[in-house]
């Protein structure tokens, strides 16, 4: 009898675990896409090929596949199938971008301010983007912890958008933005590029001391008759310590070659090798160094001259970096550009003559590598997640229009079922919501008040 009860108990708890597990999961879909020209990115181009996604995972890539009954079959004859586009630098679907009040704000987490109701997510999906890296802004030398999101539009729960498999990331920023916000704006460090370096080095050193304090306490408290008292908790220093321990990938806003090389050296001094540079307009000058010491560079295709530090730029940047062996991606940093990153990638064929595969890698497998998620996404391979886009033309053609977008095997966009109003939440008191009137730019300096000028910046990168 007693044994029985125990068994029942075990079964019950197993059931409980199972349901909890199910409850925590986001929906996964089944789909069979037939006869497409499959641009795998990592394994060449496969003509007349089927891709079968089961429970959100690519189960089979091959010919004449048949799927289980519950999978929708889509005829993609004459169409092109590519992996979901990945944007390594975005501020879309975030309620707050900058905590611009301190030069180091490593403790803040963008995951806290995800806005799943942003219709921009749907617009990005309509442009084939399935994953975006929601970054803290560039107001601070060390900004907040960023978040890798899968665009599972339709959920009301912000945590459903989080890509749980993705490692932690954090934003750093060099140059004019942090020096203007803090130095000019509030008369505190950093006022110059030297100050930015000092802020970062001091932060790292303090984190080392902080970690030591806790290590000493944790050791002492276990001992007999311990008199140890806990040190103060500091989420900011704890996060910096986590960076030093290799648990967090740095994504650093940067333009000039000298400051890029500066941060490479700082990171080498502290044994940090998980480092990606973003913007990197002068990256072409330090390409070999970027290739050797970092996880790559995430650049604009052809965007510059919006402030002094961004004048020395070239549209050949991505191509030069690629040819030098730097893991290179092209990002949007814009709610509008995120809708046609395939055009942005195609520009590298005009400026630098990259191959189709190289160009597509800039918006798929390479950003996946920079976010530490390349084992799950970024190419069409069996075992990877079913994030896929169907195009009517080759995605690098100027005529290309995305037809369908899948995330985890679930169709999130279909050009034939594209309702006019895709908003999830509507204000009961606004006749015309701003979403109709303008595209809100959520950019690097979004929401930063420059106290010297009394203006709120919305359009500076």
């Amino acid at each position: 009898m007693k044994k029985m009860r125990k068994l029942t108990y075990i079964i019950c708890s197993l059931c409980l675990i199972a349901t909890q597990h199910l409850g925590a999961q986001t929906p996964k879909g089944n789909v069979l896409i037939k006869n497409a020209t499959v641009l795998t990115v990592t394994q060449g181009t496969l003509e007349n090929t089927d891709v079968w996604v089961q429970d959100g995972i690519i189960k089979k890539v091959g010919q004449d596949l048949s799927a289980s009954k519950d999978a929708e079959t889509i005829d993609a004859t004459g169409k092109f199938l590519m992996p979901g586009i990945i944007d390594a630098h975005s501020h879309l679907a975030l309620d707050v971008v900058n905590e611009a009040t301190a030069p180091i704000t490593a403790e803040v987490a963008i995951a806290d301010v995800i806005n799943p109701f942003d219709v921009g997510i749907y617009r990005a999906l309509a442009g084939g983007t399935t994953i975006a890296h929601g970054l803290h802004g560039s107001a601070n030398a060390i900004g907040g912890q960023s978040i890798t999101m899968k665009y599972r539009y339709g959920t009301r729960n912000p945590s459903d958008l989080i890509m749980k498999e993705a490692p932690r990331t954090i934003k750093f920023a060099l140059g004019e933005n942090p020096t203007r916000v803090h130095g000019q704006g509030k008369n505190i460090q950093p006022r110059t590029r030297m100050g930015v370096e000092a802020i970062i080095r001091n932060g790292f050193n303090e984190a080392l001391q902080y970690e030591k304090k806790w290590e000493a306490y944790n050791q002492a408290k276990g001992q007999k008759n311990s008199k140890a008292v806990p040190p103060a908790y500091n989420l900011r220093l704890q996060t910096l310590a986590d960076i030093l321990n290799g648990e967090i990938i740095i994504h650093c806003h940067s333009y000039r070659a000298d400051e890029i090389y500066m941060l490479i050296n700082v990171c080498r001094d502290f044994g940090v090798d998980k480092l990606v540079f973003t913007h990197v307009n002068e990256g072409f000058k330090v390409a070999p160094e970027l290739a050797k010491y970092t996880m790559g560079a995430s650049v604009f295709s052809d965007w510059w001259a919006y402030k002094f530090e961004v004048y020395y730029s070239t549209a050949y940047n991505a191509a030069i970096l690629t040819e030098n062996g730097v893991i290179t991606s092209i990002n949007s940093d814009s709610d509008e550009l995120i809708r046609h990153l395939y055009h942005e990638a195609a520009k590298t064929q005009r400026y630098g003559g990259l191959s189709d595969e190289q160009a597509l890698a800039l918006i798929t497998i390479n950003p996946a590598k920079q976010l530490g998620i390349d084992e799950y996404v970024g190419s069409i391979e069996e075992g990877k997640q079913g994030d896929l886009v169907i195009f009517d033309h080759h995605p690098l053609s100027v005529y290309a229009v995305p037809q369908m977008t899948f995330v985890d095997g679930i169709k999130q966009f279909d050009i034939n079922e594209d309702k006019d109003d895709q908003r999830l939440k509507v204000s009961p008191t606004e006749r015309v919501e701003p979403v109709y009137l303008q595209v809100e730019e959520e950019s690097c300096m979004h929401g930063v008040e420059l106290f010297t000028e009394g203006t709120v910046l919305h359009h500076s990168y």
Partner: protein
Amino acid sequence: MIKRLTTLMLLVVMICFLDTPLAIGQSDQTGQRRVTGTYVITNATVITQPGKWLTSTSIVIKDGLITDIGQNVTIPVEAKTISGDSLFVYAGFIDLGSEAGVKRPEEAEKPEHYDPSNPPNEVAGITPERSVLDYWDVSDGSIAEWRKAGFTIAQLLPKGEMLPGKTALVVFGDTKSTNVLQESTGLFAQFETVRGVYPGTTLGLMAKYRELYKNAELKNQHAKLFTSNGNGISRPEKDKSLEAFYPVINKQVPVVFEANEELEIRRVLKLQEELGFDLVLMDLEEGSNLSSELLAANAHVALSLSLPDDKAKEADLEEATEEAKEAHKRVVEEYDVALSQAGKFEEAGVKFGISTNQVKKDEVLKNLRLMIDNGLSEEGALAALTTHPAAILGISSFAGTIEQGKLANLVLTTDSLFSEESKINYVMADGYLYEYDISKSNKVAGDPTDLVGEWKYTAETPGGTSAGEIRFKESSGNLAGEIDVDDPNGGGTVTRPLENISFDGKKLSFTFSIQVQGQKLTVQSKGKVEGDDFNGTISIRDMGEFSLTAKKTPDFKF
């Protein structure tokens, strides 16, 4: 246990009243002391709790307590009688989130050369150690106004930013009493930050909240070590902000967290899940779709009585495009969803109370009726005003229902509470009786049509006489208007909208603003309307008062 509590209560109440009968041994020279603290309400319809009606019932009240209730009660000789024949008696309403009589503390002074990235707690809006009672004025006029709306017990919310202070429970009784029921009922938290200092946004606020909470836990641990075995333990540095968290950490009081929208509610639930505090969610305007999460988190809910305005919903779309009409359908849908939140919470089994700090007094019953029209049961509405908040506050033993031994907080209405015609005739709070004039019709405000039309005005100002036109319009009982004034920046006239229009049939007041050299000046006007004549004044802050007269232009109707 219950008996002991009751005895304790009685004792407490007796102590409260000691000074009334004993301390004043001679006749009251001011003549203000009430003749008796004993009342009887005879022969009324008594709703002792939601769904439970007693007819022809009398209630005896003595010195702040309900001492007897029934059809055949013994009426003490000293009792003042309120004839309740046509009245409905309800338990006094309980407000989970009130700002009645609560002042905003003065802004903290910023130290010289302070670092905005690391400001002192006061400067950053972090003052959990403050008690709202230190900023509460028991004689503030708005308390009487809220009492007139039926509220007798309220949880006061301190004003401020991220962590403004501790909430407290008071009764809206006589101004000579302290009226305090509980000095600390919770730690108030909001998604509000101080401009220009850390933390400046929701991002920083949530991180700061986590850090404060964790440090309070550690400091609490340190302090306990020090008191239990001080030898060899370093002195814990005092920190009033962190110490204010101790009752939360020790599960003695909840965090009262203001969250209006769904995403804010989710953020609070996330913090609660991480840190594990008891939670009262304050001022909810949506979130019934999160009912199961709220129940699972054991979070209590105070629904805001504020409802969205219907301007967008009622917009005239006759000449609009099809696209605009389609978009408007969703506005209407969403408006209905907002009004049905209370009903949906009820359906999901969330026992919510209400908060008033975001509504005007005259909107309370109006909005509750709207909620009832959209799915909330009348019992549910009454429970939200009485039994549910009492349970949430843990004061059911002495408040929330009409029962012998409970505090004498009552609302007497002329009809069942939620019927359109119902008016509040009496409110008894803390055993004190307040009577309200019900002779006037429901329309306390004057007939707005008396004003509608064009008025020619002249105003005498130091700059000379100026004249122009005021135009009043009316839509669904609300007055709107505009005024033509000489452009102070020279040349021509400008038309400004009238704001804060108030008209009771006789007295009229309104404000409007003008721009003078880039500065906004608010002009106030008030006076009396008699027939087609308005005699009044206009005043501009610091500039004095000047006369303004106006005459209505007759509208010609054929």
